[in-house]
């Protein structure tokens, strides 16, 4: 299976190149960089810290899509429409993991999904996506007697809070209860907070050290509690998941899929 990487010179792009090269059943078909980038013309694998190949970083993605069974895009939102269009034209499976798409960019991705298989997810980690599913399931089974709290720990440089994953977990919990997170969320506790409101979904944010991300969802009932925890120790989990999604998407009918589909959890 031939997998191409757009934006192969970024942090995630280089990790993706390493992941595809390491996968026994996959071959790297090439990589692209931003037009004008000093990476253009360099060796795709060498710039990712591996042995050189005969693949050169290109500034146009058309040839890459022609040479690939699947293409992974964890690059930038602005490139999403062009990559989606190329995937559709060439009938190539697309794995799209960029967040922060505007409505037009999202529309382009969805339009491409009418013509080829597109897997779109803001977290490509297999473990996180399974956790989302399990959280929704537990929230659906246990009622308000079980208080839901979400705790995260991230490295000291993470600038936003709560994390996108914490918010996704909160939405999954709210969906399981048939509620809306906006109405249930407690993002801060400070001072005279009073008793905990029934049915609330609480968040607590910790920052420190170099952790690439730990999340725990707690269902605290009378006499017992359930905890679902995910602990990342490497950013490679995101690239591992993206490659798993690419492998899954090749040969699938046109459509917009999520990591949950990839995991058989939809």
């Amino acid at each position, binding site marked *: 299976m031939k997998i191409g990487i757009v934006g192969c010179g970024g942090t995630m792009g280089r990790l993706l190149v390493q992941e595809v090269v390491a996968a026994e059943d996959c071959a790297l078909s090439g990589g692209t960089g931003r037009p004008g980038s000093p990476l253009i013309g360099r060796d795709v694998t060498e710039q990712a810290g591996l042995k050189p190949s005969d693949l050169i970083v290109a500034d146009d993605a058309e040839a890459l899509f022609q040479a690939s069974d699947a293409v992974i895009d964890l690059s930038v939102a602005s490139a999403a429409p062009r990559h989606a269009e190329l995937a559709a034209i060439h009938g190539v499976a697309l794995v799209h993991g960029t967040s922060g798409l505007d409505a037009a960019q999202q529309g382009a991705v969805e339009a491409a999904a009418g013509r080829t298989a597109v897997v779109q997810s803001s977290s490509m980690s*297999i*473990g996180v996506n399974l956790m989302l599913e399990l959280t929704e399931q537990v929230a659906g089974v*246990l009622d308000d007697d079980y208080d839901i709290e979400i705790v995260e720990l991230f490295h000291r440089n993470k600038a936003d809070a709560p994390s996108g994953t914490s918010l996704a977990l909160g939405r999954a919990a709210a969906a399981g209860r048939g509620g809306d997170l906006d109405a249930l969320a407690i993002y801060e506790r400070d001072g005279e907070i009073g008793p905990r409101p029934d049915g609330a979904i609480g968040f607590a944010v910790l920052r420190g050290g170099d952790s690439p991300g730990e999340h725990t969802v707690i269902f605290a009932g009378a006499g017992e509690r359930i905890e679902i925890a995910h602990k990342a120790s*490497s950013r490679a989990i995101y690239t591992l998941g993206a490659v798993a999604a690419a492998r899954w998407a090749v040969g699938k009918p046109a459509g917009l899929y999520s990591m949950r589909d990839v995991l058989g959890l939809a």
Partner: protein
Amino acid sequence: MGRLLVQEVARTPGCAVGGGTGRPGSAIIGRDVAEGAGMAVTADGEALFAACDVVIDFSVASVAAESAALAARHGVPLVLGTSGIGTEDQAAIAAAGSRTAIVQPVNTSLGMNVVFALVKRAAAALGTDYDIEILGQQHRKKVDAPSGATLALARAAAAGREVDLGQVEQRGRRGAIGPRPAGAIGMATVSGGDLSVIHTVFFAGTGERLELTHRGTSRAIYTRGAVVAARWALGRPPGLYSMADVLGLA
């Protein structure tokens, strides 16, 4: 457990204690089942089943088959929470299950049963790249290990992977154990103090791990689950059911 069940039923809206039995010859016979209930403890199972909509038996394995037979004869649903039932008695219980609804939970805690379902699902979704390890933490007075819950979690994981637990389980590591075999399901036990009972299933992959934990801090979780099962069983067609059926997790 019996006394806790009486309290649980008494405080559950929509439920009333229909009676209670004790071992023949026990000093408890003739005393009030519950304070102010106006019912004496008897040794007469027949009368109990005749008087109740549903019966809960958490007593001893030796009477399980008899309870099941009484349930079948009176068409009364039964929640049977005893463990260690022999093969012959289990066959009799299964036969009774063709005539009335019998819920036979491995563990009646709602939370633990949710965790069983989560473990099975996670094991099915994650490949053998994710090593499964189960850690049970128990108080110092517990005399057997691994705990029944640890074994049930291991069975749930094996079921999710569609393998036979006996072929893949690893217990009691010591010495030059060598690399971990792919696909193994490991179990370990910590014992001490009066710890609340904690069970964690680890799915340890490359660069990430998922941990599913149940913490029990009160025995009331077992009696509460038993009453939930009893209410669920009322009006069910005959059959042998699990807590997963009760919770819609099967």
